[in-house]
């Protein structure tokens, strides 16, 4: 947690409407308010880049380039969650293209568990707030200079 700009780095899940995910839980949408919690955040190294949809694309690309060139890192990890997967891939490919083939990519995918809170809006106050988990896909791309040998 050395970076002060933590919150903006976190990838924000921007997936489709939540109630389409789990048809098993039937609820009246008026009675509950959906409140998404932030995805779980892991302590991050200096060469981790979490891609989000709010920051300008060029700024994120520039950050990665700076890490690779000025920052002296041999490899960086670009993480993207949900809607940001696309952008993470885009960034990685752009990095590779601009390096004239010096960089290589290694992509991994994973599934991230996200938590939603459902708070009852019901005036009877009998309803218990519910918590649901849903899954979302994530991508982790390692962008690195291959070893000299």
């Amino acid at each position: 947690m050395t970076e002060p700009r933590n919150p903006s780095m976190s990838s924000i899940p921007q997936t489709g409407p939540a109630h389409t995910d789990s048809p098993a839980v039937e609820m009246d949408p008026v009675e509950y308010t959906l409140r998404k919690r932030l995805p779980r955040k892991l302590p991050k190294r200096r060469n981790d880049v979490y891609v989000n949809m709010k920051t300008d694309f060029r700024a994120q690309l520039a950050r990665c380039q700076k890490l690779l060139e000025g920052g002296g890192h041999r490899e960086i990890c670009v993480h993207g969650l949900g809607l940001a997967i696309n952008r993470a891939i885009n960034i990685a490919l752009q990095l590779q293209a601009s390096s004239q083939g010096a960089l290589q990519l290694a992509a991994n995918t994973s599934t991230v568990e996200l938590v939603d809170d459902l708070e009852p809006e019901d005036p009877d106050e009998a309803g218990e707030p519910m918590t649901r988990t849903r899954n979302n896909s994530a991508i982790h791309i390692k962008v690195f200079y291959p070893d000299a040998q």
Partner: protein
Amino acid sequence: MSAAKVKMREKKMRNQPASVQYPSSSSNVESSTQNGADAPGTGENADPLKGGLSEVHPSTERKKKTPHQSGWVRGHHKDGGGYTKEMPKYITAGAFARARAAEVSAMLKAVRKTTSSSHVFEALPKHMRRRAMSHNTKRLPHRLREVANRMREKSLQAGSKKKKEPAKSKSRKARRRHGNLLLEFNRRQRKNIWLETHIWHAKRFHMVKKWGYCLGDRPTYKCYRACYRAMSSHCLLQDLSYYCCIELQGDEDKLVAALSQLTSKEAGPTFAAALCLSGRRQGSVMVYRAGRYPSQPLGPVTFLWRPRTQGSMHRQLWIWAHPTLKQDLLPELQTVCQCCEAVIPPAAPVEVNPTLEADSEPENTPEAKPVPGTKRKRSRKDATGPPAKKILGDGTRLPSTPVSWRSSSNGIVINDLTMEIVRYRLIGPQSHSVLVDTLEAATGCDEVQKSQTCSLWWPQHCSDEAKMTLHQQQADIFNILKGIYSTAELPSGTVLGLTVDDPRLTLPRKRVKALPCVKQAQEVDEEKRRKLMLEGVPEPCCQSFIWEQSVRDNVTDNKISEQELNRMRSEVLVPGSRLSPTPLQGRVPILLVHQPGKQVGHEMSSWGAGWDLLLPKGWGMAFWIPLVYRGVRIGGLNMSLKHSQNKAAPHFPRDYPDCPAGMCFQEEQEAELLDKFKRHPPAKRTNYIKHGCVAPFRCPWQQLAEEWEIIVQEGGSQAQITAQADAVTEERTSQQAISITKPLSRFTVLRNRKALRLLSAWCRPTTSKGQRPCRVGELPPISCEAVTSFLSAHAMSLVWVHVSLLSKGKPEYHAMLCVPTPEDLKALGNRQGTGGPQEPPHRDHFKSRIKRRKKDPKKAATSSVTPDKPDGKEAELIFASDLDTNASKDPKSFSESSSDLILGLWPDPLPSVASHCSRVTVGWVTQGDFSMSAGCGEALGFVSVAGLLNTLLNQTSEHKGKLLLRNPTSLHYRFAKINIEV
């Protein structure tokens, strides 16, 4: 004016010798002899001069002797032709010389003598003056020192004559002696309550006296950004002990029934919300006067139920309220609970005295004074009287004031626990790691200790098996906290009860930053962690012994003193290691309450989440220092305002203009700002009239709501509004003037969830990228009928909005929120770069009036009320009423009117606030700043519901919810987007 000049001249001429002036004289000889006689003492001095003088200036002397002039005359005169005639034939040398000598000596005297009250060093040229010369005469040149010393003594005497010299205070050493210091502190606490961390804060913070407390406002060092970073990435600590806790005890159904009168389900979950009632979550609720739901709000409170004990319906509830709210809330609670019998006899002495005696008890125990040197002093002190005791809790309350009320009919008991419980707030994603680092679940006691019978509470608990298993469960859950990475991962409002060891035992030697440990995190069972994240803390674990008065008192009484602890530390073999074995007194029941972060809006969600730490009183500093040693930042009142601003949450007294506390706050703020404004020289003040800002220091919400109500009733569109509003104002002012008794419906702040949700949907642009039209289909789209039906219910309402600027600009408080014209929006659509429209400068009609009054102070009283154009009727009425009142009132009315007319401010009554400027005003900002989390100016404010709906109806779908924002000191409008967040 001339009188003053004359006075000044007199003062200057006071020391001038009178002999210089020649009275009109018929004959030269006479006058000269007179003059010669006047200055007999000058003899030798004048001698060498006289010859020269008479030779060099023969003509001037001649001129002076013109008989028809008295005194000196400069230059030639028209009738100067007369001289030759009167020229003396001869001059008596002796008399003449003597006269000249007198003149010269008088002149020298006048030159040497300093006039008026000037100091000695004023005689020095500027380059020789030094700082603090009047204070230290040694800085003066030697020749002036004596005079200066004399003058200084004189002035000192004069000063001592005026006010008596203060009694000689004790030496610093005596004053700083522990007992005396404590007495002094106790004396100073009598008026304003000190928090337990007061001394710590007073050394580091700008302290303010507010709400009967001494509170830290902001640190003396620069840390605004550092504190923001602490909140968003690490941890910020605040002392919130000034919040008042009110305890209610009674049967659950009776309590819920009584409290339901104070709240409404329309405004969100109430005291009876299922999860809160179980004691697993902290709830927050808006409290109204009993049965007066929409119209008379009191303020927001948070509440916490104690978890049920098996087979008992008896419940305990803590309501936490702001001190300004407490005075309104407590009587209201007493009425709804029918608790009017104050429980005086046992409560009063028990409340105050034991707390005083408590602290001294451990000191008096034999092991507490191992150093023999202190014995002498102690005995001496004992002889003079009881030693000073540290005040714990509320020092301002009289011992006889009741703190507990009982109802005879339904058995509910209300206890005022103000200052009985210490509350610290940790804000930030790492606050749990700070807590995990600082606190350690209490260690059990071994068999030997158990067998000992003593008054301490922990050994007794250790012998109870059920209590120990519960403690074990709580400790397990507390350890799971090591496995989470951010405080925001937990369900909001979670409560965890715990018993911990004295944190002073594990105090690190150096201040270190507490960070989550990845290794420890991986040790934590994944399954348990998941369960905690999803479900929160199970109900039994929310129980804590801090709820019990007896345990609290026991813990407070038996705290190990700092001195004792230091002695134990010195005996430890390895310096800095943990003290062991843990002394028996060092177990404290605490309660951890999770505070939700930002809950509204889509961005930065759960920013500023954290934990509240509740401690029994007396233990404040014992926990504060260890927390500070974990590298947290400390914030004051200022930071709590910024915290709520970034959370987009209203801040209590400031953003509740319809509550009594909010109104009070507004008045105070106005007085303060006006005072500040008046401290500037008039030429340097902002002329708010020219800026078209009607009320720069307050927000006339009532007037705004009324104006908009009338405008909407008459069905105003953009063009007509201005004309109408003028008419409205006149109507209104005349109404007010004629019959103030007419009951006016008060404005309210809209807090009905359903209505807010509807408004929120209407505010949102329907076709904007990145925003899904979520559930708009279920809500009726904005239309004339929908709006009219909405307004019929909430016409006099204000609504709380979150404003974010589209381009640059930093909103300030009391900035106006205005409606853009269609042309403005068109310009916005065409070129994004344009900053926004400009307000044409207004004319200040009052300036001339002020000038007139300055010239003619006699007439000021009447001229200041002379009607100007807009408020003609009103002023006439006032004038008439003034005439009616008797003459004795006159000076008063004069002072009033003079205070009314301040250059650059509109006098009362204000003109129409809605239509004063070229863009129609719908509301004001109550707090605003550059938001570091959003990277643009953000503000929070209120707009009139009627005005807002009227605007929204006329706006096209892509520009929905766009308003203009203008600071009071600027003529520039900025585009801003409003959001209503539910």
